[in-house]
């Protein structure tokens, strides 16, 4: 094999190759359909354009996706993030709506603190069910997925709480230094999560627990604590996303806020190259996945297709991505591609397969 071929194989074999290709294809399609798509213009000191919109609208999904990435890396899943969005948005909006001056920064900060605090509690609940009681993650978080919507409605008493608070609204649609504030928040949280996982040993230990739980236990890792922690992080990320979702529309709707965001988040994580079985995770990949999903949604809107029909495309993407990642699928079609570089292992395996 020549070097260029090797290099090409390394590029196409990279887990983010196909997502990047898909994203570029979507952007190209949009540009052809609407030549002004890529243009970004300055109005009133703000940048406007489809690309900026995509970034702004993708922010909540990126946040939820970041937390979900860590949960999935441990081999778990968090179905309750959508409900968490609704709950944190609801409690924040409720608090603001009860203030005499909804524009007072102090009240808004308290509201945000309440939302994050409640998310911490709910995250701890999920974490306890999974790590202490030992219930399967998908089942444990299903409980809060069902009951959480009810809790959110309980907080809003079934109403859609409408607020008129500029500082809160800014979380969703405000601008800072020409860019939407939500982008800064998403980038900020991403940097924090990246720092917490990659500047400390947390990331490696999460990957170790997700990659091989028994080996991790025998290496002396306290995996219950790690598992607990990731559900708390996921809940806090979802809580912050809940602020954005509700701030975007200046109202909290216990039913609609964050609806199906858990599914989009899982999808973003999977597209981003983190395996649902756990192990190695990629925060950058998840962000890319979230952007891809949002671009797809925006594209569908732009082409005047109903947003619900966009689900058809999502279905295709989900299946395509999962098939590409599935070992069984790869094995069935492996003969066409170059051989996987796992040859040294193959020599080792049979020796361990023949214990008499």
């Amino acid at each position, binding site marked *: 094999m020549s070097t260029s071929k090797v290099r090409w194989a390394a590029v196409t074999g990279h887990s983010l190759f196909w997502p990047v290709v898909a994203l570029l294809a979507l952007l190209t399609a949009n540009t052809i359909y609407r030549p002004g798509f890529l243009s970004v213009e300055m109005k009133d000191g703000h940048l406007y354009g489809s690309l900026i919109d995509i970034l702004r609208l993708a922010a909540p999904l990126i946040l939820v996706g970041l937390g979900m990435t860590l949960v999935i890396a441990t081999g778990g*899943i968090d179905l309750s993030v959508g409900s968490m969005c609704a709950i944190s948005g609801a409690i924040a909006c409720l608090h603001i709506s009860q203030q005499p001056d909804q524009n007072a920064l102090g009240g808004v900060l308290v509201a945000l603190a309440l939302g994050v605090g409640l998310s911490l509690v709910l995250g701890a609940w999920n974490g306890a069910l999974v790590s202490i009681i030992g219930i399967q993650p998908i089942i*444990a978080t299903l409980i809060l997925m069902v009951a959480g919507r*009810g809790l959110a409605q*309980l907080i809003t008493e079934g109403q859609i709480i409408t607020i008129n608070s500029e500082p809160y609204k800014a979380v969703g649609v405000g601008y800072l230094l020409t860019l939407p504030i939500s982008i800064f928040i998403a980038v900020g949280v991403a940097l924090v999560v990246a720092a917490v996982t990659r500047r400390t040993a947390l990331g490696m230990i999460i990957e170790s627990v997700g990659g091989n739980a028994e080996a991790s236990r025998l290496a002396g890792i306290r995996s219950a604590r790690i598992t607990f922690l990731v559900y708390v992080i996921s809940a806090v990320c979802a809580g912050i996303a809940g602020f954005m979702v509700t701030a975007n529309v200046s109202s909290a709707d216990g039913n609609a806020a964050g609806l199906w965001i858990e599914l989009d988040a899982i999808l973003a994580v999977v597209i981003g190259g983190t395996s*649902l079985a756990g192990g190695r995770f990629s925060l950058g990949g998840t962000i890319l996945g979230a952007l891809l999903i949002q671009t797809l949604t925006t594209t569908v809107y732009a082409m005047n297709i109903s947003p*619900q029909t966009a689900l058809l495309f999502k279905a295709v993407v989900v299946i395509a991505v999962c098939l590409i990642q599935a070992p069984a699928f790869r094995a069935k079609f492996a003969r066409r591609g170059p051989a996987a570089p796992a040859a040294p292992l193959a020599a080792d395996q049979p020796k361990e397969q023949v214990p008499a």
Partner: protein
Amino acid sequence: MTTTSLTPTRDWWRIPQRYVPVLATLTLLLVMYAVGVSQYRAFSNVQVIFNVFIDNGFLLVVAVGMTFVILTGGIDLSVGSVVAMTAMMSASLLQGGMDPAAVLVIALLVGPTLGFLMGCVIHFFEIQPFIVTLAGMFFARGMCTFISKSSIPITDPFWTSMAQERIGDPRGNFVSISVLIAFVVVVVGAFVLAYTRLGRNVYALGGNQQSALLMGLPVGQTKIAVYAISGLCSAIGGILLSFYTLSGAPLIAVGMELDVIAAVVIGGTVLTGGSGYVFGTVLGVLVLGVIRTLITFDGSLNSWWTKIVIGGLLFAFILLQRLIGIRKK
């Protein structure tokens, strides 16, 4: 390690452990009913119970299909969307003037076909059921709006007659045809699970897939079959729903999969598979229905309490399953 004795270990006052969850649900149902009767005079009316069946007939049918899937240790998130898609498609075809019989046949074919395809992907490519049926859910929901963005009314005489037919005393206590259909589905489902090889293979698969393979059972066929069955039940549920609402709406039955899963789990079926009964699922659906009825009767409680209570029950039953699981070891 278990004991060395030849006699099985029995406790729980000699009630076999496999019946504990179902009995717990039955007790819960009776207690809830007793509370309802003691609090509200009208609750003791037999029609209240009939109405629970009438309002939840389609849920019951879908839950029977879900029971099959969960018994194998899988999950089917697509049911709500498939229900909506079936209703939408029937409404749209009827609007186009197609013969009702042909519409029924087509509507009953699409759901199982989608289920079959999902089962194939799950089995052949070893992708988690969760993800595959999630894609199925997106697909079916997308199809709904693809058919129409707004709700389509149904005026077909066969459909309206099915919707309005009252069985029993039309002025006194009655049930709808949907309830009878739901009962037939329940009985067939229970029979298949208890008396056919397919049904027993479903249990074996949920108990231990590796063992099922080594015992020579058709694991792949069974796996594909349960998703097809769930698709069929969703299709029947969709038709019942279109009888009930006389329309097809693109956003109907959103989140229904959660109600269905909750009903199956509250009915005592273990989410990891291998243990549970269709009878339990019937009880689970009734518990959900009675909670809604109680909250309606109360008037001061709001509908969101339904979700919170269902979530609480889900927690209680999952915890019960977990405790029984630990006791076994």
